[in-house]
Structures are given as C-alpha cells and as structure tokens.
C-alpha cells in the first residue's frame, strides 16, 4: 500500500514537473543555458557565448534529413554573412541516429565554418523542446530568447524565398530593433530521440 502511494506521488510529481520542460522557452524568456564540446573538442558555453556576441543563433541540424540538407547552403551562407557582423552561429546535432564522425564529415562536405556541437541524449533539444531539423533559436546578449522558428518558407527553391524569416530577424537585431516576427513554425524532419 505504501509502495503504491509512493509510486502515485512519483507519478504526480513527474506529471507536474514535465509541462515546464516540454514547453520550451517562450520569446523574451531566459534561454536555457548549456555547456557542450564542439566537434573540435573545444568547450562551448551558451552563457559565455551570448554575453560576447550580438546574438547567438542555435540551429538544430541533421545529416540525413532532406529538409535540413536542403538548407545546408543557406545555413552556410547566412552564417558566413552574419558571422562577420558579430552574430555567432552554432549547429546542434541532437539526432541519436547520427554519430559524431558523421556530423563532422557532413560539416566538411558542406563547408560549414560555424561551430557545431553534438548533443548526446538530446538534452539541449529537450531543454528547448526542439522537434525538427532545421529549427532555429536566437538568443540575445541578455540570454533571452529573441526568435524561434524556421529559416524561411521555401524548402526546395532558395531563389524563390519570399519570407526570409531568419535573415529578417538578424537584420532587425543588428539594427537594434525588436524582431517583428519573433515566432514562426519550424518544419522538417523530427529530431531522432531514439
């Protein structure tokens, strides 16, 4: 009887605790901090990185997802362009199905010059409730979430993009303006948590 009460208590506690984790940070709320190693073996701290950059762009990426791969060139080009303007880009691979060696060779193949971290056990993906690849979060110097969503609306035809949401947000951040469209709907492959 005692054992079943204890179990009930544990279940209730878990049920009460889970919504906050499941929701992910809201726009304007503190972005969860994390510390991971980059593919180069260097330490990466979001708390430190956000303080020393105009913004940090977290990009949940994949090696095998065709949707994420359709954005490889765009991610590379945006990171190169805005990296020169004080924005730090971090690719996060949370897919349990994609080992670090594969993430490294994929980055080389596609000319990714931005920082990339592997997220063992999807811990960072869970902190942000990231569900898709690609999925973008922008963190400001104050550590708060500024933008969450997609890169743009057109997966297959970069030349026909009509709503470059990530670039728009970055331009507004660099101009010292609030991001007008701070939340868009990320779409793509599911992050492989098993």
């Amino acid at each position, binding site marked *: 009887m005692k054992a079943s009460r204890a179990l009930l208590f544990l279940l209730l506690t878990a049920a009460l605790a889970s919504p906050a984790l499941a929701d992910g940070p809201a726009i304007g709320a503190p972005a969860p901090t994390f510390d991971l190693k980059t593919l180069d073996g260097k330490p990466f701290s979001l708390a430190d990185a956000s303080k020393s950059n105009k913004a940090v762009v977290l990009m949940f990426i994949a090696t095998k997802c*065709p949707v994420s791969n359709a954005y490889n060139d765009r991610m590379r080009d945006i990171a190169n362009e805005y990296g020169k303007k004080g924005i730090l880009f971090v690719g996060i691979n949370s897919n349990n199905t994609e080992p670090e060696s594969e993430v490294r060779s994929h980055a080389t193949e596609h000319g990714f010059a931005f920082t990339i971290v592997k997220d063992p056990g999807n811990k960072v993906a869970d902190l942000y409730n990231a569900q898709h690849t690609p999925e973008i979060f922008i963190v400001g110097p104050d550590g708060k979430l500024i933008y969450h969503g*997609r890169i743009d609306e057109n997966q*297959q035809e970069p030349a026909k993009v009509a709503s470059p949401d990530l670039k728009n947000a970055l331009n507004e951040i660099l101009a010292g303006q609030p991001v007008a469209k701070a939340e868009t709907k990320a*779409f*793509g*492959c*599911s992050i492989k948590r098993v």
Partner: protein
Amino acid sequence: MRNGSKSESRNPKWRAAAAALLFVGLAAAPAFAADPPRLAGELDAKGLADAVARNHGKVVLVNFWATWCVPCREEYSDLIRLEKTYRDRGVAVLGVSIDFAKDLPKVEKFLAANHPEFPNYMKRSGGDDQDFIDSVDKKWGGELPFTVLYARDGTKARVLSGKQTYASFEKAVTELLR
C-alpha cells in the same frame, strides 16, 4: 536539323519540358489501371482538399510519406493491406509523397516495388511549404510519417503522428466507420 535536334535534347529547358510532359502524362493516367502503379499527380493544399472531397461519404485516410523516411517505408505495407481489407466497407486511402521533385524517379521506383492499389500523389514543389503543412494540420511540423483521417462527412477526425502498426490504423478507421 540533326545537329539542331541534338542541341535541343541537351538544352536543359527542353529536358525540363520533356520531363513536365511525362509527368502530366503520368498524372492523367488512371490511378488504378496502370501496372506498375504510377503517381496520380502533384497536389498542393487545394488539390489535397479536392482529393479528400472526391471521396465524400467514405472514411478517408491520407498518409504523408517519403522515400527517405524509414518508418514511412516500414508502415507502407500495412496501408496497402488496410486499403485492400476496407475498400469495400467505405474506406479510401490516399498517399502523399513529400519527396522533393528531383526525387520523382525514387518515388516511382518505390511505388513500382510496393504496388499500392490506392492513389499516390506528390506534394507540388515550390511555394510556401508552411501553407501546405498548415493546411494538413496546424500542429504538424512536417515530420514523417503523418496520417490524417477524415470522417464520412469530410471533416478532419484524427491525426496519427509517427509510425503506426496495422492495428492502430485499423482501430482509427473502424472507429470512424461506426
């Protein structure tokens, strides 16, 4: 002339036109009569709504899949079995490939290998992908496989996200047949 023909055949525009004609030809073909099975055509948000509406009076199961999606391929045989079992009881199954246009040959190869007896479409490429995704389900983020069930009156009744078993497909369908 011969040289001209050669250069035309090498011209990407002519190749694109030939591919488009081929695709239109495939789209115009009967959905079931062809052997091996062919694509029923491309569709956008309106095309999907029309395809569902054409099956008014039936329970309609729309399955979104892609050749690169392993769980999609794994559950596909269950959809084929389900459609065969329930087609005479008022169930229609529609497949929608989310593969990119460049992967049309892979889609056709998959259909030829699996022989579905229900129509399969490809999502029309270009445009606002989010419009299409939202038209299917506001909570959908494009992850695959994804299945939507419509009741006999055409209203959306249920969504099934992720890989399903035959039993879960069957349960969802039979609940709507009652």
